[in-house]
Each structure stands twice: as structure tokens, then as C-alpha cells.
């Protein structure tokens, strides 16, 4: 569960940073208070995400060791990129608070932040996509999904911040971009889920134990009370529950926020859409968390073939 929170919260924070950095580079005038509050919210989300990632470890005190194997491990690379990204966002926020405009603040740091942000999405997604025998994950769509869901949720939050901060002129274009990426994220996620539902597992019980005779069934997994293998890789939920969470994830994660963006997109420049946008952020957060949980639940690990029956 801590990984679900870590990846979604970090994704939202990354999306907000991308929105502010790209606006800065594109020459869009953002009010100083919007930039400061946006970066502060994003920094807070990233720090909570970092905390959640520590909760996932059995030995958090040794976490510093995880930077060692960056040559081979995507997890190690993520452990390097995440703090670097947080540091750059913090520095950028500090310069907005205490320094005058300049090329370092307005060109260099946004560029570095964008590079690290994309790098972080890439590392996080590759942690899953590089495991070749978890066929649900081992696909470029995993990278596309992580990036687009981060952009969508980050832009929805950024649009809400624009409205709440009183940057009325920005609300409509921000909502437009948010809607664009939310629709894109929904399409990519639905394509990935549909692909995963149709996947035929390469491993079978026959290849798992190397016996060709059919039918073949397990009679005992070798223990009665369960083990790490039965707890870690199986969610134990019914097919009906999985189907329900899938509809909730798509509905609350993409469809509802897209609808709630419409008042901001269609309405005038008044402060009206603020409430709708805040609701969009809350509903989407629940939906994206459910979607990330489903991402893990949908993975059928080949090791499960060995753990089917107790007695």
C-alpha cells in the first residue's frame, strides 16, 4: 500500500512542477503567489511520497545503501533521481521566495526540473516494466500510464490552484490542458487494462514443474498456514471486487474529473469553478489511488502457480 501512495502522490507533485516549469519556459505569466503555492504544494506531496516509500522498507535505516547499484537497478536509479528532484524543486521554490527573476531561476531550474521529472517517471515505471515475466507490466504502456496519469492529476490540481489563488485568466487554459491530458491518460490506461485482461500467461503449471501430462493439478503447496509467497503476491479479492475497483478507478480517476473541469472550461473568468475543481482533485485522488492498487492487483506473478492449494 505504501508503494501505491508513494507513486501516486509523487506523480501529482511531478505534474504540478511540469505545469509551472513549462509555463515559465513558454513565457506564460504566472502570479508570484501561484508559483510559490504550486511549488510548495508539490514539494509537500513529494516529501509525503518519500516518507511513504520508507514505510515500504523492512530496514528503513539502511535505505541509503539503495543508491549503490545504479548501474543495474531501476529502483536504485529512482532512489537517486527522487531526492535530486526534490532538492531542485526546493531550490527553485527558495529562489522564488527570496530572489529576483534571472536566467537561473526562470530558465535553468525549470529545464533541470523538467529533465529530472521525466527521469523520475521513467525510473518509477521501469521498476515494473523491466520484470519480463510479469507480462501485465512488461510493456511500454506502463511508462505511458505512469507519465500521463501524473500529468493529468498534476494539471487538475494546478487548475484548482489557479482558481483558488485568484488567477482567473489562467483557469481556462489550465483546465484545457488538464482535460487534454486526462482524456489521453484515460485512453492509455483503458488500452493497458484491456491488453492485460486478454493476456495469455506464458507460464503454465506444466512449465512450472516440468510435467507434460494433462490434466495437472496441485494437491499441496507444502504448508498449511500460508507463507510470504501467499501473502505478498496475492490480493485475495474476488473477481467482482476487482471489476468494481476497475470501474471506480476509471470513473473517479478520469471521467468524473473531466466532467468537473467543464465549468472552468466553459464558464467565464469568475471565481465560480473553484469548488468544482477542488472536488475534481479529491475525486481524482481517490480514483488514481484505486487505479494504482489495481495496477498491482492485475499483475499475475508466475510464482502464484506454485501456491494454489493448501492441503
Amino acid at each position, binding site marked *: 500500500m505504501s508503494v501505491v501512495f508513494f507513486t501516486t502522490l509523487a506523480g501529482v507533485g511531478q505534474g504540478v512542477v511540469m505545469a509551472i516549469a513549462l509555463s515559465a519556459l513558454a513565457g506564460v505569466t504566472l502570479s508570484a503567489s501561484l508559483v510559490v503555492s504550486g511549488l510548495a504544494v508539490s514539494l509537500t506531496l513529494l516529501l509525503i511520497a518519500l516518507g511513504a516509500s520508507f514505510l515500504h522498507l523492512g530496514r528503513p535505516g539502511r535505505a541509503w545503501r539503495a543508491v*549503490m547499484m545504479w548501474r543495474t537497478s531501476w529502483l536504485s536509479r529512482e532512489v537517486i533521481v527522487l531526492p535530486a528532484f526534490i532538492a531542485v524543486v526546493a531550490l527553485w521554490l527558495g529562489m522564488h521566495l527570496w530572489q529576483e527573476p534571472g536566467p537561473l531561476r526562470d530558465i535553468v531550474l525549470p529545464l533541470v526540473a523538467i529533465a529530472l521529472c521525466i527521469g523520475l517517471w521513467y525510473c518509477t515505471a521501469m521498476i515494473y516494466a523491466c520484470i519480463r515475466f510479469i507480462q501485465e507490466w512488461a510493456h511500454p504502456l506502463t511508462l505511458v500510464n505512469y507519465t500521463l496519469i501524473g500529468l493529468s492529476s498534476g494539471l487538475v490540481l494546478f487548475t484548482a490552484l489557479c482558481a483558488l489563488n485568484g488567477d482567473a485568466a489562467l483557469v481556462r487554459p489550465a483546465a484545457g490542458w488538464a482535460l487534454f491530458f486526462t482524456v489521453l491518460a484515460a485512453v492509455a490506461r483503458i488500452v493497458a487494462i484491456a491488453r492485460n485482461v486478454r493476456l495469455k500467461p506464458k507460464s503454465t503449471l506444466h512449465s512450472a514443474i516440468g510435467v507434460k501430462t494433462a490434466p495437472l493439478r496441485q494437491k499441496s503447496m507444502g504448508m498449511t498456514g500460508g507463507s*510470504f509467497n501467499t501473502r505478498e503476491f496475492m490480493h485475495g479479492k474476488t473477481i467482482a471486487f476487482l471489476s468494481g475497483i476497475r470501474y471506480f478507478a476509471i470513473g473517479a480517476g478520469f471521467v468524473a474529473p473531466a466532467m468537473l473541469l467543464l465549468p472552468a472550461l466553459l464558464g467565464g473568468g469568475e471565481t465560480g469553478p473553484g469548488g468544482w475543481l477542488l472536488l475534481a482533485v479529491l475525486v481524482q485522488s481517490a480514483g488514481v489511488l484505486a487505479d494504482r492498487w489495481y495496477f498491482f492487483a492485475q499483475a499475475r506473478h508466475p510464482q502464484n502457480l506454485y501456491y494454489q492449494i493448501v492441503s
Partner: protein
Amino acid sequence: MAQTYAKQLALVIDLNVCVGCHACVTSCKQWNTSGSAGPLSDQDPYGETPSGTFFNRVQTYEAGVFPATETVHFPKSCLHCEDPPCVPVCPTGASYKRKEDGIVLVDYDKCIACKYCAWACPYGAREIDEERQVMTKCTLCVDRIYDESIPVAERRPACVTACPTNARLFGDVKDPQSEVSVAIRERGGYALMPEWQTRPANQYLPRSITETIAAVQAE
């Protein structure tokens, strides 16, 4: 593809004679819970939901249609793959494959228990120790097979010594004259889940009766 080493220690398991007695399971637990690397903890061992850390499990399968059914007892432990997917994913370097004999080991002092290696093993060979919070797995009794203070005949993994039917062979699969190499070559030794190209060092000898039934089915 990872490099392979000149020497690769491994187990070869003869499914013809395994009777599913679990002596390899208990002897493994006894030896490895008593070593200097720390105990293999149990949770609620005498309660309703007993659980614990084991390096080796014996499972049972049934193949075929009655009356032509076959019971297959199937011991499963780390296969010490020649291209182990669990090793490169480890962020700390705690998981490694020894150059001198190909054994895949975990350095318990470096493990942060992120469980990534367990997700990267298709065989479910790794189990976390819930009490020590480190990832554990079969070591091929690395603290025993090189111990010069015990008789040469006992310098084998505990499971091999314990097996009452000699279903477990141990040796260097890169030495063509070794007992394990001869067994693999002459008795059709095979690897588990070859579809993932992990090249397991441990191999299994097929049950000849089950093979016969499969051949008849195929005709």
C-alpha cells in the same frame, strides 16, 4: 545475457524417487536456523495460522486422469540461476551471485527488505524473514559445504544428506564428469519455466512413468 562462471554448484532432484517426506525441508530449517547468519524465524508456530521462513518446500501434484493418475512430489528451492533476474534489480547489492561457485546469496547486512528481488524471481524462491526483516533464500548450505572441520562425506547441503531416497544430487554442473552432469545428460534433466531464459542451475529428472503416460497421451 550475464556471464557464466567456470564452476556452478547446483542440486539435481530426481522426481522418480522423491516420496514427499519433507525430510529435506526440516533438515534445511534445522541447519539454517542454527547458523551464524541468524535464525529463520517462525510466527505463531503452534497457533492457528502458523507461518515461518523456509528455504525449501515440498509440494505435491497430481497428473493424469484416474485410474492412470500419478502423484508427483516436487521439492522447490532457489534454483541458483545462471542468469538470475533477482540479482541486477537489487538496489543495495545485497543480492549477488558468487563468481567462484555460482551460488546466489543475500548479504543480510546490506538488505533493506524492499522485496524487489522476490518480485523479480518467477519461482517464488525467496522468502522474507518477518522477524529479522531481511530477504532469505537457499544458500546451498554455503557454511557447510566448504567446512574442513567436518568429514568430507558431510560437506554437502543438509537436504542432500537428509534425503532417505537419494532424490537429491549435489555437485558442479559445469564439470561434465560430475554426478549431476551425468544425471542431467543421461536422464533427461530439465529446467523449470525455460520460457524466461533464467537458465536455472538446479535441474529436475523426470519421472519415467509420468513421461510414458504423457507420451501415450500425445499419440
